[in-house]
């Protein structure tokens, strides 16, 4: 076991993958000399050189498009989008090109690229630098979507993403970079596409991912002190979505909540709640409750920012009311 930050785990994953596979290279703004806006690629340029840590101009659409072409030509680019908030500039290349090339071209070729980016609140970064936009990706057939919530997953999911045949959008959470956990990177982790049951209880199932896993765990511990036992499912990847695990846990317990930092309406929480409600209908004692970001932009004010997204407290309170 070593203590390691989420940031360092991501860096280590890149180092190990790039050492093993010469075809992997990183391309994006400030990924080389600067070491990444959040420091994930710090020092990698010394180890792998500027050709494999390719600093780009500020041209998001072409960065993603270049990665698409490089992937088609046989390499494995890790394109970095500094903030997921900039995905809007790249959605044509991502959703009309990367996601559809295999299909449109009748299976001739895939686009094995990873789009690394980060999202979420926590740094007073305002409306254009604090969003949780994973729903756009989850809604787009052809794109895989990984969102690590733990240090071990930061490492392993990134390693796994770099072996997938299809484009993977890999969204880190900006508030987790400095988080430390004791990890044994050689220990078994669930496979790609498998959720992790982080905790098992009998009263309510909390289905979540990314930073909200920690809120759910905090809530679950507080609830345990009040005699309520929660199951916490960390989805790890949203596409593939491991519904079998969700189904098994929800049918066992009969009560579920879903938690997502992204906006409520037509978001990830909607998908999860709809699917649980549809597929586990006869097992549910109560409605599946969605806890998600408010349907509003994120403010720069510290107070308003925090108020705009779910907290451990609201997860705890809602579970208590649900079980009551």
């Amino acid at each position: 076991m070593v203590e390691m930050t989420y940031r360092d785990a991501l860096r280590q994953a890149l180092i190990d993958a790039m050492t093993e596979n010469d075809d992997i290279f990183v391309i994006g703004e400030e990924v080389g000399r600067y070491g990444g806006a959040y420091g994930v690629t710090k020092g990698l340029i010394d180890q792998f050189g500027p050709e494999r840590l390719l600093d780009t101009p500020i041209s998001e659409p072409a960065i993603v498009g270049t990665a698409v072409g490089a992937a088609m030509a046989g390499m494995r680019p890790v394109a970095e989008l500094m903030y997921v908030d900039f995905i809007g500039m790249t959605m044509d290349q991502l959703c009309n090109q990367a996601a559809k090339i295999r299909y449109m071209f009748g299976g001739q070729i895939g686009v094995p690229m990873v789009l690394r980016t980060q999202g979420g609140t926590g740094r007073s970064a305002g409306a254009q630098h604090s969003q949780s936009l994973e729903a756009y990706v989850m809604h787009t057939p052809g794109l895989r979507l990984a969102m690590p919530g733990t240090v071990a997953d930061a490492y392993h999911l990134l390693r796994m993403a770099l072996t997938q045949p299809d484009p993977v959008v890999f969204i880190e959470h900006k508030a987790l970079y400095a988080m430390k956990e004791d990890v044994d990177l050689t220990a078994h982790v669930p496979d790609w596409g498998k959720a992790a049951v982080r905790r098992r209880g009998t009263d309510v199932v909390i289905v979540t991912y990314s930073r909200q896993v920690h809120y759910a765990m905090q809530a679950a511990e507080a609830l345990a002190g009040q005699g309520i036992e929660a199951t916490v499912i960390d989805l790890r990847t949203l596409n593939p979505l491991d519904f079998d695990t969700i189904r098994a846990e929800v049918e066992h317990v009969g009560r579920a909540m879903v938690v997502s930092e992204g906006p409520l309406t037509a978001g990830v929480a909607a998908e999860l709640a709809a699917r649980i409600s549809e597929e586990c209908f006869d097992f549910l004692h109560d409605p599946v409750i969605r806890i998600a970001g408010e349907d509003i932009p994120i403010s720069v004010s510290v107070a308003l920012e925090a108020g705009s997204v779910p907290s451990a407290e609201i997860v705890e309170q809602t579970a208590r009311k649900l079980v009551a």
Partner: protein
Amino acid sequence: MTPPETAAASRTAPQSNTDLLGLYTDMRRVRTFEERVGELFVRGQSAGSMLHLSIGEESAAVGVCSAMRDGDTFTTHHRGHGIFLARGADPNRMMAEIAGKQDGYCHGKGGSMHIADMGLGHLGANAIVGGGIPAVVGAGLVAKRRGTGAVSIAFFGDGAMQQGILYESMNMAALWDLPVMFVCINNQYGMGTRVDQATRATKFEERAIAFGLAGRAVDGLDVLEVREAAAELVDGARTGKPAFLSVDCYRFFGHARKDKSPYRTEAEETAGRKRDPVAHARAALLDAGTDEALLDRIDGDAATEMDATIDFAVASAEPPLSSMFLDVYGPDEPMPEPLATRIDRVLARE
């Protein structure tokens, strides 16, 4: 049904023709193929009406492709039949794809605007104006990294000159000294918009030069001129000097099959169609003493070859409905669950 993952440009493209007679032959084949596409539509056998013919633009396709080499890659815009034919496509599989059939290059999933063939280095036609441009930067990057000596070329129309992604792509190509070329087929129109209605700055090569590329414009009437310019620029690109070429021509017909071009005069069209690179090459060949019977035979061979494409396309089977769920993800990945299956499963409530 799904072929294994194919590396780009793994098959050998046929040797390009470089003399005028060969270029003429290639242009005639393109012209005749496009005429047959029009027939396919009239017969109600095409999948939809989004068919963009490259008649009048043959010298751009054939001239530039004649400067390409084995291993080179390219992307095209929506008006890309001629380019791919000039690069060695099987016209039968093209026509079948245009008909949305199983034997098409993309098994009926792509259609006219999404024909691709990794084996011949065709990284894909694109229905998004400008959408295929940055991919050549990526392909060029890989070619440079691996020292393959290959060039990657993006073909697009004058309309794409106003898409920002072109400038981002050109800037990157120049910054990284990539073996990449950008070819604008300036047929004077983007749908109903004449090029001077889309911009005040119609000397497109100047834009490329301002971004640090080698830039030229050439009259597409004479395929040898196009070939000469393309060869020079492609050779430069191969040594790390990215290039831009604008080929001036005229879109003989409407934007797509249903467009009758009411936005331009007949007089203009008549004059425009006089700028015919195929006729021009034929006249030059005759002037140079080529036997007319030889040219007639070339034309006849093209007609025979391309007539057969319609029969091939019509005879090809519809793709099976189940193929719908294939190739959304890689070959060993589970397929999406069909809606009907899911609903039955949910309603069974087991």
